[in-house]
């Protein structure tokens, strides 16, 4: 008994015989009356993948025979209408027995065919069940994380409350948020504060979780449109277990909502890729909103624009590439108009968030190591997927895939998607800091995930030949995501005890020097004796002496202590250790201050003690 080599293609089925070196698909032909599309054979591009008739499509052969006459007339009409745009196969080619015909749902009026590969109902529902399960896993992974509010979360939430009061009642703000917030302060902070008003921190975090779940769903949808359901599920399965996804889904910061909007914009440009009308422009306001929500998303707008070009290319040819230029141009104009309207403060903040180098920040090796730990697996799979996809559009000969286009186009898809992941790393290296790298990675990994899905699908092989490898790879990704997200979500100490300790010593008009004042302000919101302007952090202080001299930095803190300016001083010798040491020495010898208590701060990465001094 002879065995077929594992790597050889399966035997051709009757009626779907492979023909020698068929050309790539160039243009779907829509039959206006029968709602079918003829996929013409074309042999001009030697790099192209052979188009294999879709064996999984039920009734395709029957429909092909039934609509043969209609196809011919439709092809004629189409070729006349579009001859100048692309190469149209000759009429006799359509009549060849091997001509491929697929039944496709009719797109919106005038929008061309919806999809190249319309899946079966069974395939659709199985895929939907799988993505539902993936989203459930993602939700569980995020919700299992437990800790009190992170400093950035606290800042967003209480600033959102202040912004809301400012917008509604003209209440004063605590500083000019526009100059240093990483996003427009009236967007995410206000949304999060509204959620916080309804259900506290849990509700604010639920907004992020919802955003990240939508992001994963959109990733699946986008990948399904670019490749197929299997790759989409692989991409979503990998993306949902990365630490960046898990973390962003349980942090009340602007990353998740911004990424969700960016994902929606990406999905729109891919979804509208086959459409002839300029529906892809709908993505632009969404993309701009994503960038306004979190300036970090600005870095990925070129990728969205490029995606608009390469997504439409197989369907409408080279004119699709103009979409990228149009999108880029219009987005620049939109931002220019936005800047003119809202002022330069936002530009300052955006430049600070995306292009201002941090002096004395993290070392490049640290950033590279962290990025490798947190996103290396997906990027490695994405590189593998890029290479394999460039070499071969299909995982198995009869695999249903979206129009892959020429090899150049496939390379472009891989380079744009995988390369975008590197943007995160490059900018963090340029910024010279690893601050927020853990959540910023989610942006890059969102784009790399489709190619990682291709890579994982190729590892699994045709007909799930090496399913165990895929399971092991995903298990590794899952374990890494579990451990890393747990570690990162526990990297700040639980603030419950400290806040309760501080609350003992609040007084009307008293002033508090607190190392991380945002958390204290947030948790003491509503307390009359704990208004934001009563707090000072150990990060920055400007103090005017009794002689009217304005001083900053350590001298400002020492002068304030000497004048008895603060009623409570709290430090933990962690982030601002040099200043804290100076404060400790000053407090130890100051008879007006007494150590009221110490609160141990225990996190997996460090153990320290928070010192609470009160003015007696």
């Amino acid at each position, binding site marked *: 008994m002879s*065995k*077929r080599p594992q790597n050889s293609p399966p035997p051709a089925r009757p009626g779907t015989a492979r023909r020698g070196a068929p050309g790539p698909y160039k243009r779907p032909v829509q039959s206006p009356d029968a709602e079918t599309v003829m996929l013409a054979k074309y042999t001009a591009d030697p790099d192209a993948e052979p188009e294999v008739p879709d064996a999984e499509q039920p009734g395709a052969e029957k429909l092909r025979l039934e609509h043969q006459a209609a196809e011919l007339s439709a092809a004629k009409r189409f070729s006349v209408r579009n001859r100048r745009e692309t190469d149209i196969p000759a009429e006799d080619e359509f009549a060849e027995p091997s001509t491929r015909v697929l039944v496709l749902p009719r797109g919106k009026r005038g929008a061309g065919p919806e999809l190249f590969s319309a899946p079966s109902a069974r395939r659709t529902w199985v895929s939907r069940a799988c993505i539902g399960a993936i989203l459930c896993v993602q939700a569980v992974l995020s919700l*299992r*994380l*437990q*800790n*009190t*509010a992170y400093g950035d979360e606290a800042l967003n939430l209480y600033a959102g409350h202040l912004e809301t009061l400012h917008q509604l009642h003209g209440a004063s703000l605590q500083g000019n948020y526009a100059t240093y917030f990483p996003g427009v302060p009236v967007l995410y902070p206000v949304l999060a504060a509204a959620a916080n008003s309804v*259900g*506290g*921190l*849990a509700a604010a*975090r639920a907004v992020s979780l919802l955003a990240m779940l939508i992001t994963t769903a959109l990733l699946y949808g986008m990948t399904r449109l670019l490749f197929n359901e299997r790759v989409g599920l692989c991409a979503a399965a990998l993306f949902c277990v990365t630490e960046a996804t898990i973390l962003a889904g349980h942090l009340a910061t602007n990353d998740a909502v911004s990424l969700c909007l960016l994902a929606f914009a990406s999905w729109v440009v891919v979804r509208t890729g086959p459409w002839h009308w300029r529906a892809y422009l709908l993505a632009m306001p969404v993309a701009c909103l994503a960038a306004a929500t979190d300036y970090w998303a600005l870095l990925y707008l070129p990728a969205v624009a490029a995606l608009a070009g390469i997504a439409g290319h197989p369907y409408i040819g080279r004119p699709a590439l103009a979409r990228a230029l149009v999108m880029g141009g219009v987005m620049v104009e939109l931002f220019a108009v936005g800047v003119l309207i809202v002022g330069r403060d936002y530009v300052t903040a955006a430049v600070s968030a995306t292009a201002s180098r941090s002096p004395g920040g993290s070392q490049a090796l640290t950033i590279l190591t962290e990025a490798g730990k947190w996103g290396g697996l997906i990027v490695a799979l994405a590189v593998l997927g890029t290479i394999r996809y460039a070499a071969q559009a299909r995982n198995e000969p009869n695999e249903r895939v979206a129009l892959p286009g020429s090899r150049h186009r496939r390379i472009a898809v891989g380079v744009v998607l995988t390369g975008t992941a590197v943007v995160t790393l490059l900018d963090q290296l340029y910024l010279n800091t690893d601050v927020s790298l853990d959540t910023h990675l989610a942006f890059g990994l969102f784009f790399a995930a489709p190619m990682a899905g291709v890579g994982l699908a190729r590892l699994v092989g045709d007909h*799930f*030949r090496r*399913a*165990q490898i895929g*399971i*092991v790879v*995903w*298990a590794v990704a*899952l*374990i890494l995501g*579990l*451990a890393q997200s*747990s570690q990162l*979500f*526990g990297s700040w*100490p*639980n*603030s*419950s*005890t400290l806040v*309760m*300790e501080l*609350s*003992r010593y609040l007084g009307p008009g008293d002033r508090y020097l607190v190392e991380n004042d945002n958390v204290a302000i947030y*948790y*003491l*919101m*509503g*307390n009359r004796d704990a208004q934001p302007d009563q707090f000072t952090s150990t990060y920055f202080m400007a103090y005017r002496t009794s002689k009217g001299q304005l001083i900053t930095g350590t001298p400002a803190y020492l002068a304030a202590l000497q004048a008895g300016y603060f009623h409570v001083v709290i430090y933990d010798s962690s982030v601002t250790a040099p200043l804290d040491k100076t404060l*400790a020495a000053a407090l*130890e*010898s100051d008879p007006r*201050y*007494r*150590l*009221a*208590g*110490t*609160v*141990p701060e*225990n996190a*997996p990465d460090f153990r320290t*003690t928070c*010192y*609470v001094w*009160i003015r*007696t």
Partner: protein
Amino acid sequence: MRPASRVPLVPVLAAALVIIALGGCGVVSPHQSVGNAGSSTHSSAPSPTPSATLPYNMSGLLDPTGGKFFGVEAQDAPALAPVNAFAASAGRKPDIIGQYVAWGTSFDTQAVTAAWSYGAMYYIAWEPYDTTAAAIAGGQSDRYITKFADAVRTLNLPVAISFGHEMNGNWYPWGTDQTSASSFVAAWRHIHNLFIQAGASNVIWVWNPNIINPVPQVQLEPYWPGDAYVDWVGITGYFPTSGPETFATLYGPTLTEIRQFTTKPVIIAETSVETGPSDIQALHSLVVGVKRRPGVLGFIWFDFNKDGVDWQIESRPTVGDAMAADISRLPLINLKK
């Protein structure tokens, strides 16, 4: 054709994956013990963690206004039997239980806990035998001090510590004959800072000179570590058969000198009345003197029979009865509040 061996691998690996994932969810996350404030924040304040313990709030003890302290340093303390005997004679349970602790002795957690359960704060008269103030200031005892401080912080109950009591006398090794004022101050500050660094904020620091009457030539101020390092001023002074018989004459000169460099509250840290013709009057003067002076927190009775002199009240019923009568009119502090 699919190899037969591949078929069972998939479910086996899938099962292993599920086990790993479930295990990871529970095991890998180290934060379940950290608290659950993040998930239950409908209110603004974070939820306390089950293990979270606030530092003992000392603000009510540093300068209490609601009542006076009535303490005892009893023979064989910290055992509670002599304390109970004293309380039976005095008619009131003491709210300070003092003990003399030699340098190098570990912090007696059980004694502090027992005293607190009894309703009293533990008072340590820390005696630096077998070392010198200079050695302490030079860091030679840092390990011992830090360990002691850690134990104090961990216990998280209020404790009063008096280091090197009666430093202005010449009858102890840390007294004026063998220790300079600057060395004493340096040692005091060093110990205090080590306690601060250890986070032991639940200590009341008692600077405790002897009354100046027997050593008028010794100035107190050079021995003063500074307001930042002291919470209470303790004064040691006994009513002997021959000598001052009133609160004012016994403690007045010392209080006057102390008030020249600090306003910290004062406690009579070691006192008693020697048996004699005016012992009842002296006792009455002590209690009334404490009661009338807002800056005086209370007194600690030296209930010992030492060197042939019986300072106890249990063995002197008349003194005991007088004590009970006077104490009943003295408003006492309620530590549990």
